[in-house]
């Protein structure tokens, strides 16, 4: 593909787009893992929400 005399600007624009999208995806994925780990640690230490305890009693 011939991008002409301004190829550097086009490539730079797409590179920035890839970087921003990768950072957004990375932020969401890593944040989800962090929250799941912290929630699991709290539940393992015996702290549960009232609604969860209700579910356990009715199960």
């Amino acid at each position: 593909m011939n991008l002409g005399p301004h190829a550097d600007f086009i490539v730079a624009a797409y590179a920035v787009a890839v970087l921003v999208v990768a950072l957004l995806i990375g932020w969401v994925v890593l944040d989800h893992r962090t929250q799941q780990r912290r929630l699991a640690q709290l539940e393992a230490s015996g702290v549960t929400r009232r609604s969860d305890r209700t579910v356990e009693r009715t199960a």
Partner: protein
Amino acid sequence: MPLIDLANPTRFLALAERALPWLIGATAIAFAVGLQQTHGAPDDYQQGATVKIMFIHVPSAWLGMFGWGLMSVAALGTLVWRHPLADVAAKAAAPIGAAFTFLCLVTGSLWGRPMWGTYWVWDARLTSELVLLLIYLGVIALWRTVEDPSRASRAVAVLTLVGAINLPIIKFSVDWWNTLHQPASVFRVGGSTIDRSILIPLFAMAIAFTLLFVTLHIAAMRNEILRRRIRTLMLMQAQAAPGSAS
């Protein structure tokens, strides 16, 4: 499922778990189609291959404004209806909207240098877009400043509604003032001035980026709900600890 059921965070989490794999798949397919269309798009008769920057720049600009519009609706949900997911939606949308606004500014700058001869000019469209990025950063900072999410949400909602004034300014800045930026060329009275061979790839990429926004937003809302559950559990743990005031 009635819409009101989504007001329940637990139901929302269950729905998000089911929807996210489909949304991720749809986003990937949409980007494959969009990039294939972009690759096959002809050069513009005036701008040459730099028109390919438009396929990122314009959807980013739309989504930067869409993000703030979504936050404004959520702000009404917080202030008027006290919807339990409204401020979750607003908080999750802010970093995504800010990222797309940043991408719009950077790609616009990279497009402007070869076409206008400058990376930046303080004209109405560019300046109002920069203001949008700054108020996004202000909202993100405000969320981080106030520890209690319910108190932060009301302050953020007011700031968001004040910031919404900037949306029509961005949209109509090219009509109201003499700017270097081109006037509206896609959605305008009398139809688009862009040829179909370029308009189709533009819409294909806009659909792909919109699906990406929606996917990231739902995933970020899920994370925020989990974060608030953790905060509640930690408060319960602190209250139950020996020697606590309660």
